[in-house]
């Protein structure tokens, strides 16, 4: 197999949809990581709450809210990419 036969993964000839899918996959992976952090945060906050450390609840809720906002932002990014892709396909 020559170098010219290899599938292109960079540059202007790389199909638009493929690049979008790569971006969406990356965003999904980041979403999953943020969710895992949120699960850990809830577990730790619950553990502290049951241990009588009630002061932890407020910072944990604030950080969890920020993580949720980041998840929403990533979701909007994915939806925007998807819609842009659909518009581009419809225009072709």
């Amino acid at each position: 197999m020559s170098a010219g036969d290899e599938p292109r993964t960079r540059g202007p000839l790389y199909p638009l949809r493929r690049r979008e899918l790569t971006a969406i996959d990356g965003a999904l992976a980041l979403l999953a990581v943020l969710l895992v952090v949120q699960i850990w945060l809830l577990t730790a906050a619950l553990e502290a709450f049951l241990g009588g450390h009630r002061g932890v609840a407020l910072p944990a809720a604030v950080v969890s809210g920020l993580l949720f906002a980041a998840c929403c932002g990533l979701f909007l990014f994915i939806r925007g990419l998807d819609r842009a892709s659909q518009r581009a396909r419809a225009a072709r």
Partner: protein
Amino acid sequence: MSDEPKIERAEREREPLWREEVSIFAADERYVGRRQFAKFLVLASLGMFVGNLWLLAKSRFRKPAARLPAVPVARLAELPVGGVKLFNYPGPEDHCLLVRYAEDSWAAYSQKCTHLSCAVFYRAESRQLVCPCHHGYFAVEDGRVLQGPPPRPLPRVRLERRGDLLVAVGWEPQGDEASPA
């Protein structure tokens, strides 16, 4: 290579959006697309946030603890040094143990391990409360975790000495409540 797959793909790309979203094939219903997966992740994230808000509400708007009854537990004369007495406090299903670990020192704890609620027992030779399920060890003096998986100290019963009688009168506060304001 024939042009047939390219033609098929072009045909498919010309399909309206609803045909992509709603498939007539039963097998496609089990297929989870990226969009659905992203929605699921965001909803799960919302669930975690709501859980944290619930904890915050519980810690801010908690009711004052109800006054627990005073229950006689044991007479000092009947409890030798190193001796243990099992009792139930405050309800009949709440198992506790009273330990006299020195001549003038005693303590009572909930018998439920804070890891997975196995019953702890007193080991006199090492002066430790031991959970046999996952080898959790607690100090008999204050119930703190010495070793093993338990995440919190054992809940301690507040005792009052009335003459020769030890009386359980409630629970000792833990965490932030235990520290002076």
